[in-house]
């Protein structure tokens, strides 16, 4: 180390370069040169998010209906979701990764599904419990059974709540995927962390972060549009 500490010793070796032309915050040159890598990371990120949210929705809806039908289950299900919420994502990943392995993205996927699950169950349950009693009575009076009422009356009326949950879950999942970079399965997070470790390559960090934000925004808008399409009555009432 002696020859390295010779000279202006106050400057640490790993200091970021000056904010000069050498290391700009953003550079089209970087984007052009690494378009292939960026697209791959973006696709991985979006794919992982989609898989996680869809899986979570498939599990969450029956759980919400169960909690809705069997009132004593509501408390425990919500309490469990509250406890799971406090668990740090990195810790969850640390508990999952040794058991599942780090060569695939399965451990990240499981963690993401668990977190998305909580948001979805809560919002779906809120949506279901907000169905007015008169509507429920009217449906029963019209001869709907339990399942018919659920599918044709209660679930459609709960759609705004479900969509809200879906949007929240999607946006936070996009952000959470980056934590997967701990085991190299973080999509755009790998770019962010890679840029940091690659001698603080600002363009790579910022491009990864911006793509993350844009992905979250685009998915959120898509889901909001889907919600509008699926609930035409809500629009009419507002007009």
């Amino acid at each position: 180390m002696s020859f390295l500490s010779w000279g202006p010793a106050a400057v640490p070796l790993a200091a970021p370069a000056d904010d000069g032309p050498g290391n700009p915050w953003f550079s089209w040159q970087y984007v052009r040169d690494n378009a292939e890598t960026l697209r791959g990371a973006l696709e991985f990120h979006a794919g992982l998010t989609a898989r996680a949210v869809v899986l979570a929705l498939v599990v969450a809806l029956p759980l919400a209906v169960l909690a809705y039908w069997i009132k004593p289950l509501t408390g425990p299900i919500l309490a469990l979701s509250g406890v799971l919420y406090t668990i740090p994502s990195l810790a969850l990943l640390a508990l999952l990764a040794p058991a599942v392995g780090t060569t695939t993205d399965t451990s990240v996927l499981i963690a993401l599904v668990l977190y998305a699950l909580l948001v979805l169950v809560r919002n779906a349950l809120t949506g279901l419990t907000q169905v007015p009693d008169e509507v429920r009575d009217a449906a029963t009076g019209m001869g709907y059974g339990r399942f018919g009422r659920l599918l044709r009356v209660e679930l459609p009326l709960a759609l705004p709540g479900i969509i809200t949950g879906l949007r929240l879950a999607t946006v936070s999942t996009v952000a959470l995927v980056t934590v997967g970079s701990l085991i190299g399965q973080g999509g755009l997070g790998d770019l962010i962390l890679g840029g940091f470790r690659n001698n603080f390559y600002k363009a790579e960090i910022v491009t990864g972060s911006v793509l993350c934000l844009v992905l979250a925004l685009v998915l959120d808008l898509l889901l909001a549009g889907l919600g509008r399409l699926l609930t035409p009555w809500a629009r009419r009432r507002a007009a």
Partner: protein
Amino acid sequence: MNYLSEAVVWLNDPLNWTNPGGLLDRLGEHLQISFWAVLLGCLIGWPVGIWLGHRGRGGSAVITFANLTLALPTLALLTILPLTPLGFGKPPVVAALAVFAVPPLLSNAYTGLRSVDPEVRDAAKGMGLSGSQVLFRVELPLAVPYLAAGLRTAAVQVVATTTLATFVNGGGLGEIISAGFGLGISVGGNQIVAGGIFVVLLALVVEGLLALVQRLVTPRALRAAKRRRPTAAAPAG
């Protein structure tokens, strides 16, 4: 179950606790970073939220801001802030975490002040209290349960998110986990799982303690009605 028992063996070794960079060291760092982040969040979130709630405007801005931070990856802020004039070390980590502590504090403070019964406010005005007197003698005391709920949400979230500081060598308990990954799963697996268990326990303890605080500062008459947390947290980091 083998991997759990190995983690217990790791946790049972006193050296893993007292070593430099061991659990106790990292726990100290973790709590220190979290404390400053929550404090900074309170200093920003509460005044703004209370002011907006007192004036009764800016509600949609509060929601937009909260949703925006939801979409912002913690990792992005953790890696970007050290490259700004903040420099390396603890300050950028604290600042990054504080950004995520602000939304729950802000929105709960706002909700707390907005949910004061308008008749109570009118009565206070009718008694001749000035605007600031209404704020400090009527609205704020009534909003304390909400402020406590926000503090609890924010603190738990920050304690959980501080784990991520390890990505930028910021210290904290995440270092235990990432050091385990550095050793490789086959060798460091016990350390990874042990670190995970420890962090989970810490988060649950903090949650429990602050739930107790929230209960203590909530007047008895309000407890039954306020059982549900006014604003849910974002998934922790």
